């Protein structure tokens, strides 16, 4: 699996290196996005000291997590699954299904947009800087909990996207569903705990943004409750199995149009 991933990463890199000017455009876009997100935090904290008992550097760390997830999704998940949806529509998925590797793995990593790594690195930098500003409050336990919850968040987001993409076997315009995810993802720039109950519920149970961004940020801020962590573990496990089953069910349904 790792070998396969390395191959696709190298391919993605070669592809992007062919368009080097794109690097500057992407850097610029990442920076603009970062300025917007962090600027909004700055404006809010120029008027108040806490936001729902989050301090300014804790919220900055949350923005960092937001960038890491954003970069991860845009680097692999979004381009690969868009390609997959196209393949289903055009019948070219046949070529993937006949390959001697696991088809779900292949469609999940088939396209890599290398420059989006910038967002991930930017996010790591922001988290690192915020943690230093928070001072010695961060213990090694918090740091490892952060790693674990980030991984769990990644698994949850991945399973969620795979399940949405699998819908492409039945419906034609599934890309639009991803647009719903992105509209909701904007809400992840702030801790979901500040939102009113109904919105918190949507962002936790329907679109799992709470687990993708807020929970890892809670871990780094040393405010993660053990219950939340177990919930994340449970949800990640359930979603991973469920998405796998759903994918298999979808593939069976696929009839291969033309090609």
């Amino acid at each position: 699996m790792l070998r396969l991933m390395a191959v696709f990463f190298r391919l993605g890199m070669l592809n992007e290196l062919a368009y080097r000017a794109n690097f500057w455009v992407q850097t610029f876009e990442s920076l603009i996005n970062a300025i917007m997100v962090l600027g909004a935090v700055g404006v809010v904290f120029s008027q108040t000291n806490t936001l729902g008992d989050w301090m300014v550097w804790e919220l900055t760390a949350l923005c960092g997590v937001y960038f890491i997830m954003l970069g991860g999704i845009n680097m692999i998940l979004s381009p690969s699954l868009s390609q997959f949806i196209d393949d289903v529509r055009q019948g070219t998925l046949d070529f993937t299904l006949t390959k001697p590797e696991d088809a779900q793995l292949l469609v999940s990593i088939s396209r890599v947009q290398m420059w989006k790594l910038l967002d991930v690195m930017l996010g790591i930098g922001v988290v690192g800087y915020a943690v230093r500003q928070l001072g010695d409050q961060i213990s090694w336990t918090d740091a490892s909990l952060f790693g674990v919850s980030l991984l769990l968040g990644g698994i949850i987001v991945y399973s969620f996207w795979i399940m949405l993409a699998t819908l492409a076997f039945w419906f034609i315009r599934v890309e639009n569903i991803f647009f719903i995810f992105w509209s909701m993802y904007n809400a992840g720039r702030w801790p979901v705990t500040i939102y009113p109950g109904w919105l918190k519920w949507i962002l936790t149970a329907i679109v799992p943004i709470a687990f993708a961004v807020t929970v890892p940020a809670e871990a780094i801020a040393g405010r993660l409750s053990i219950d939340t962590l177990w919930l994340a573990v449970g949800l990640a496990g359930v979603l991973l199995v469920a998405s796998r089953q759903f994918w298999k069910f979808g593939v069976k349904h696929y009839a291969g149009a033309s090609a």
Partner: protein
Amino acid sequence: MTDFLNLYKAFLRISTTMMIQYRASGLIWMIGAVLDPIIFLVVWSVAARASGGTVGGMAPSDFAAYYIVLMLVNHLTFTWIMEVFQYRVQYGNFNAELLRPVHPIHMDIADNIAYKLVMTVVMIPAVVICVWLFEPNFVFIPWALAAALPAVLLAFLVRFFLEWTLALVTFWTTRTQAINRTYFGVLMFMSGRVAPIALLPGILQDVTSVLPFYYMVAFPVELAVGRLSPAEAMDGFMIQILWLAAALGIITSTWRFALKRFSAVGG
């Protein structure tokens, strides 16, 4: 003039039918339009409660009033021109539109109005539900409410012409993502969507009062919720009209230029 009215009637009929046909994607766009103001409404309300009830003289109920009206005004004045223009030129869809005997901007205006007409079935319930959920403190000042209507119309025209002109950059380069992102970033802060302008840092506030962004969203909003004096309202209208004139000037002068540059890719 009657020709013009007939033209718009025909365009609107086509556009409305199309928007109803593609209602699912249209509805999906609305999620962001409704959710974004709610996010900032909540953020500022929470901040106000944390700092003893008000922030910059505004209580949670004032933020609720501001952002619910903003949700409506931003919906009425927004355009999606800058996002679609790239595809138009890149895939050559624009060729057909250029062959029509009228300026292509008319079809875009009709499309925009049609989308908003169709989506009122979503927007009005959204506003009603938000009023019920967030208990806004509406201050009804009759003259200000009456003045807000032309202010929204002017805001729409300024925003439409300005964004349409910016979209023409596509004729020179089809890689407009960076320009669009920058524009949207500036717009978020300067049009009062991230925060009411009074809560922005001082330097930004000074710049906002001369740039067009404030007048494309926040000005009609602040007028409607009764935060402006008659003198401030008059100033606002003056600047709106100046920017409208400027935008019209720019659009007519660049259009001819841009057309000469146009070479369809594909088609």
